[in-house]
C-alpha cells in the first residue's frame, strides 16, 4: 500500500531501477496492431531463445508505439545504450536477434530507429556511456520523419511500458500528479489549472474541460459521476484504444484527479466490446491500482475515495454520444436525449455527471505535473496542447501520430505520414471519422485545430484521418459513410432516421448514374435539414461527408449526374475498364489477378484485352498494372 507521498516517491525510485535494469531488456509491442501482425509469436520465440541460451534478459510486452506500419516491433534497451526499435520482426528474425544480442551485436541492420533519450517519458535522465558500434548509423528520433515533428503527451509511454505492470507506470513518474493534487491542491485550484491550460475535449466536441468540471462541481446533487468515454466507434480510428491498451494508468490517474476536483466518488469507463484487449488491460490496471491504494477507499492515505467500474458497450456507434452512453450504462438502449438540461446537472441516473474522452483524461496528469502554462504554450491561439490522429487510408506511414494543435494537414500527411503510396496523387483527406468532411488539396495548409476544421466544413472529431488518392470517387466515399450512418442511427428522431436514409438513397442513385440535377439539389436540402434538426451529434454531423464533398468536388457530382461518368473510375455502373494496347507490355499480371477470367492475351507480346461481358469492374487489373495500361472510361 502507498499511504503517503514519501512512500510513492520511494516506490517510484525502486520501480525506475527495475525499469532500467543493469541487463538487457526486450520489449515486444503487444497492442492490437502488434498482436494482429504476429507480435505474440515473436514474444514467445524471444522467451524460448532466452531460456534456451540461459540468458539473463528481461522480456516483457508493451503497448503500441504508434508506428503500426512497422509492426511487429521489438525494442531493446541495454545499460548505457540508446533504446533501439526493430521492425517487421518474425519469430525467426527475433531468435536471430536474441542470439546476436547474446554476442554483444546490436544488429543495426535490423533496426528501425533509436531513441537516444527516453524523452517521451516524464523526466528520466539516462546517460549513454556505452559504445554505439553498429548502432551509429541507425536513425535517431530527430532523423526519423515519422517521429521528428511529433510531440507525445496523451500517448506518452505507449510502447515503452508494460501495461500489465503498474511499477512501470510508477517508474515514469506515474501517480505523482495525483499525489500533488490530493495533498497540495484544493479542488478549485485543480479546476483553475485545467481551465488555464486551455484543455478542450478530445472526443470531438472541443468543449473547455475546466468549464465542464466547474459546472459539475457546482451542480447540486449527490452522488456525482465521472465517466470516461472509450466507445471509439469511428472506422479507422484507434487513438483511444491505443491509450487504454498501452498506458491504462494515465486514464485512471486523470479520472481520479478529475473526480477529486469535481467531488465524485464513483466513475465508469465505457468501452466498446470490440476492444477486448483494452478492457482486459484496464481491468488489470484497476486491480493493481486498488492493491496499491491508488484507487478505491482512502486513496494514498487521504480521506478521498474513488471507485471505478468498467461498463462494456454492445457495439452501437451512437453510444459514443454522451446522453446515449449514459442511457446505455443505466441499462437502457443507447438513445440520446435533448441536452437543454446539461449532463453536468442531470446525467447518469439523473445525477450531476462529467464525461470526458480517453485522450482528454490521459492529458490531465501531465498538465498537473508540468503546469497549465507549459500546456498552454503548446498549440495555437484557440486550441492548446496536442492531438492524436490515426493516420490511415492511402498513406505510407499508417499509424498513430500526436502533433501540436495548429500543425498543418500537409505536415501530417506528407512529412509525418510519408505521403501517398505508389506515386499516386493526393485527392482528399477526411478528418473526424465517418461524419467528418473531406478536404481537398487546396485546404492542405489548414492548421489543424477545432475552429479551422469546422470552418472548412469538416471537424476534429475524435481524430480519425483517412487519406484518399486520385483513384477514390468522393461520391462513393460520401455514399459509403452515409450508408454506415444510416445503419448506426438509433432511429429515434425523424430527422436522422428518415433524413439520412433519403440522403443515402440519392447518393446511391448518383453512383448508379440515375440521378438528375434536381436530385442533387434535394440532397443538399435534406443535408441542411438533417444537420439543423437532429437530436444528437450523430445526426447533426451525418451530412458532413456529403456537404463537404459537394462544396469541394461539385464537378465530380455533376460528372456522375449529367455526364454519366465516374471520373475516378470507381462507380461500377458508370465505368468501363479497357487496356491500352500501346502501353500494355503483355506481362500477364492483370489476367492473373482477374477473378472472372475476363482478360485474354497478355502473353507472348499480345496485349491483354478485357471481355466486357465477363468484367465485374472490380478494378484489380488497374491495381496490379505496373504500366498504367488499364484505363477507365
Amino acid at each position, binding site marked *: 500500500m502507498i499511504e503517503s507521498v514519501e512512500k510513492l516517491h520511494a516506490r517510484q525510485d525502486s520501480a525506475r531501477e527495475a525499469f532500467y535494469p543493469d541487463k538487457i531488456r526486450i520489449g515486444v509491442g503487444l497492442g492490437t496492431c502488434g498482436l494482429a501482425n504476429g507480435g505474440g509469436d515473436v514474444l514467445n520465440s524471444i522467451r524460448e531463445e532466452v531460456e534456451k541460451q540461459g540468458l539473463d534478459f528481461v522480456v516483457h510486452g508493451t503497448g503500441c508505439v504508434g508506428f503500426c506500419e512497422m509492426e511487429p516491433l521489438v525494442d531493446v534497451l541495454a545499460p548505457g545504450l540508446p533504446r533501439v526499435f526493430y521492425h517487421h520482426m518474425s519469430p525467426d528474425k527475433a531468435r536471430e536477434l536474441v542470439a546476436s544480442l547474446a554476442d554483444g551485436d546490436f544488429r543495426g541492420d535490423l533496426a528501425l530507429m533509436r531513441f537516444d533519450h527516453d524523452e517521451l517519458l516524464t523526466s528520466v535522465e539516462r546517460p549513454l556511456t556505452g559504445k554505439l558500434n553498429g548502432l551509429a548509423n541507425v536513425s535517431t528520433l530527430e532523423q526519423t520523419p515519422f517521429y521528428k515533428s511529433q510531440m507525445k503527451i496523451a500517448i506518452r509511454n505507449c510502447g515503452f511500458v508494460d501495461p500489465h505492470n503498474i511499477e512501470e507506470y510508477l517508474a515514469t513518474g506515474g501517480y505523482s500528479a495525483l499525489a500533488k493534487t490530493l495533498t497540495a491542491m484544493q479542488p478549485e485550484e485543480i479546476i483553475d489549472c485545467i481551465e488555464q491550460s486551455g484543455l478542450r475535449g478530445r472526443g470531438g466536441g472541443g468543449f473547455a474541460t475546466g468549464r465542464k468540471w466547474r459546472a459539475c462541481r457546482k451542480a447540486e446533487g449527490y452522488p456525482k459521476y465521472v465517466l470516461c468515454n472509450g466507445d471509439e466507434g469511428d472506422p479507422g480510428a484507434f487513438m483511444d484504444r491505443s491509450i487504454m491498451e498501452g498506458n491504462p494508468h494515465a486514464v485512471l490517474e486523470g479520472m481520479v484527479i478529475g473526480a477529486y476536483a469535481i467531488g465524485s466518488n464513483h466513475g465508469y469507463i465505457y468501452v466498446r466490446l470490440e476492444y477486448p484487449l483494452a478492457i482486459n488491460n484496464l481491468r488489470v490496471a484497476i486491480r493493481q491500482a486498488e492493491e496499491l491504494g491508488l484507487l478505491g477507499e482512502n486513496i494514498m492515505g487521504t480521506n478521498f475515495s474513488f471507485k471505478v467500474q468498467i461498463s462494456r458497450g454492445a457495439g452501437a456507434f451512437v453510444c459514443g454520444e454522451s446522453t446515449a452512453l449514459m442511457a446505455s450504462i443505466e441499462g437502457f438502449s443507447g438513445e440520446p436525449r435533448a441536452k437543454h438540461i446539461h449532463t453536468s446537472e442531470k446525467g447518469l441516473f439523473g445525477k450531476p455527471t462529467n464525461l470526458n474522452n480517453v485522450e482528454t483524461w490521459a492529458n490531465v496528469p501531465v498538465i498537473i505535473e508540468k503546469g497549465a502554462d507549459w500546456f498552454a504554450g503548446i498549440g495555437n491561439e484557440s486550441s492548446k496542447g496536442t492531438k492524436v490522429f490515426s493516420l490511415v487510408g492511402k498513406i505510407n506511414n499508417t499509424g498513430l501520430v500526436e502533433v501540436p494543435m495548429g500543425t498543418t494537414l500537409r505536415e501530417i500527411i506528407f512529412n509525418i505520414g510519408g505521403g501517398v503510396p505508389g506515386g499516386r496523387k493526393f485527392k482528399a483527406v477526411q478528418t473526424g471519422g465517418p461524419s467528418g468532411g473531406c478536404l481537398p488539396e487546396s485546404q492542405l495548409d489548414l492548421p489543424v485545430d477545432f475552429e479551422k476544421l469546422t470552418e472548412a466544413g469538416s471537424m476534429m472529431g475524435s481524430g480519425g484521418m483517412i487519406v484518399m488518392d486520385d483513384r477514390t470517387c468522393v461520391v462513393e466515399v460520401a455514399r459509403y459513410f452515409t450508408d454506415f450512418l444510416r445503419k448506426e442511427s438509433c*432511429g429515434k428522431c425523424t430527422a436522422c432516421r*428518415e433524413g439520412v436514409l433519403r440522403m443515402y438513397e440519392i447518393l446511391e442513385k448518383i453512383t448508379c448514374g440515375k440521378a438528375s440535377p434536381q436530385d442533387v439539389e434535394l440532397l443538399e436540402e435534406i443535408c441542411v435539414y438533417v444537420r*439543423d434538426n437532429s437530436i444528437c451529434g450523430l445526426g447533426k454531423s451525418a451530412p458532413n461527408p456529403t456537404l463537404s464533398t459537394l462544396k469541394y468536388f461539385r464537378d465530380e457530382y455533376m460528372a456522375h449526374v449529367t455526364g454519366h461518368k465516374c471520373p475516378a473510375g470507381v462507380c461500377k455502373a458508370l465505368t468501363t475498364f479497357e487496356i491500352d494496347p500501346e502501353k500494355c507490355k503483355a506481362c500477364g499480371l492483370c489476367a492473373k489477378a482477374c477473378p472472372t477470367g475476363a482478360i485474354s492475351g497478355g502473353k507472348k507480346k499480345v496485349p491483354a484485352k478485357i471481355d466486357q461481358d465477363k468484367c465485374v469492374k472490380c478494378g484489380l487489373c488497374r491495381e496490379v498494372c505496373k504500366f498504367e495500361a488499364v484505363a477507365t472510361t
Partner: protein
Amino acid sequence: MALIKTTIDGREVQVERDRWAIDVAREMGIDIPTLCHHPALEPYGACRLCVVEVTKGKWTWLTTSCDLPIREGLNIRTDTPAVIAARKMAIELLWAQAPDAVEVQALAKQLGMEKPRFAARAEAGKCILCGLCVRVCKAVLGQPAVGFSRRGVERDIGAPFDKPSDTCIGCGACVAVCPTGHITSVEDGPLWRLNTSKTEAELELAKCPECGRRFAPVKQIEFIRKTLSDKPERAVLDQICPACRKARTAAGLSESSRERRICLEK
C-alpha cells in the same frame, strides 16, 4: 417557483422556469403541430414537428419545443421561414415513411404539400415511431409490454421477439395514444385483441359476476386489484362491469337517501 421572463413570437410572458415551451406557447393560443407529444408523458422529441427557432444572446438555433425548458431571456419564434421549412421536411419524411397514416397526410396538406418527393418505404404502414405507445405503457406498467426493436431505418415497435407479450394487461392505453391508428383493438367474443402490423395480443375477457357480460381483460382486473390492494373496499366494485357498478352505486345512493328520509320522519 420563481417566475422568469421569456418572449414567444414577440409577446413577452412570465412563466415558471423549466416549463416546456410547447405547453406555454399553446396556452398563449399559438398552434404548434406535433405527433409525439402527450401532456401526461415526459417529452421525447422524436417527430421533430414542434420545431421552433430560439435566439439567446448571439446564438440562434432550431430546436424542438416539446423538450425545451423555458429559461430567462429566450426569444422563441414559431413562424420563421426556417421553422416552416423544417416542419415541411419533417412531415414530408414521415409521409413517405407512413403513407397510410391519414393524420400525417392531413397535417402535410395543412402545410401546403401535395405529395412527398420520396418514394414510400417498402415496409411502409401507419407507424411513425413516435414512441407514445412505449412511453405510455411504461408509465402504466413500469415494465413496458411494448418497446422498440432494432435501430436506424430498421427500428420498429412491438412486443419482445415479436411474440404476444406476457406483461400486457390489455389496458388499451397504447391504442388510445397512437396518433395514426397503427395500434388497434377489437373485441372478439371472449377475447380482446390488440394489433400492430407485426404482433397480435389476445387477452381473455372477464365475465361480470352480476350480469354475465364480458367487459375487461382478466389480467387488467388482476393488475388493478394488485395496484389497489391497500383499498379493499374497492375490490368488489373493480370486478363488476361499469354498467353494474353504476347500478350498484345508484342503488346504494337511493338506499342511503331512503334511510335518511326515515331518519328525518322519526
